[in-house]
């Protein structure tokens, strides 16, 4: 089964890269953009058919490796 995870910085953590992208978009003429936050996207192939088990494993790897929960949140998509 295919799972994906999106890791983003928590709201209270400064994201200088997002800020620069935001500013650049404004400089390019996109005046109506109010905020940009940059994150990471992972695609993972799992040899497991049970979606509940997949979710469990995905939770574990997000907590243990893919994100640092001090500063980041993660969101998991299954299938």
């Amino acid at each position: 089964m295919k799972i994906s995870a999106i890791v983003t910085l928590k709201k209270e953590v400064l994201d200088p890269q997002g800020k620069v992208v935001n500013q650049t978009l404004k400089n390019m003429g996109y005046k109506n953009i109010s905020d940009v936050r940059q994150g990471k996207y992972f695609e993972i192939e799992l040899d497991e058919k049970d979606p509940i088990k997949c979710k469990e494993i995905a939770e574990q790897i997000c907590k243990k490796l893919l994100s640092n929960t001090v500063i980041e949140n993660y969101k998991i998509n299954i299938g």
Partner: protein
Amino acid sequence: MKSSIIVFPGSNCDRDIAVALEKFKIKNQMVWHNDANLPKSDLVVLPGGFSYGDYLRTGCIASKSRIIDEIINHTKKGGLLLGICNGFQILTETGLLPGILLRNKELKFISKNVFLKVTNLDNNFCHNYKKKNIIKLHIAHNEGNYFANNDLLKKLEDQNLIAFKYSDRNGNINDNTNPNGSSNNIAGILNSEKNILGMMPHPERMIEPLLSGEDGSLMFESLFNKK
């Protein structure tokens, strides 16, 4: 006094620290990250560099190395652990020290000498700085922006666990003396037991007055003359 320096793929300050430790009569061994056993040591050092090319997050992949469990056991028994630069990043990723190091506020790699105020003199790494508590060390990092939430910052300040703060030559600490955006100008912190120190500046680069300066020497002398 015996020490072990852990070498990861991408470490590049490991031999510099070995030179510094040996200069101050500390008997050192290099230990590969994938070794299962840590040789008997009083001090373990996680060196600076770019372990695993900084993939995913700085220090993150190294924090999952085989030797790490041994290092955690070493610290539980009261052994000393020093993480410099990338070593500090590895310490936060293992959870041995709280908080995390983010990219520098200005998104630029910084390589320069900075002034620091030694804000905790009561530990095995810093007690010799009683002689001189405003020092000059070198920093070289892209992710040195120490981040801690307000609760953690309060705990670090209240329990006096901050070892170094970025300052000016007179010891003034403010936004103008903060090179990378670190919370409260933090350059290095200790754990509650004060046997683990993580710091972004490089003391091993300041041990020869002819080349650079001597303010790093005081740390290695502190370690050799453990309290």
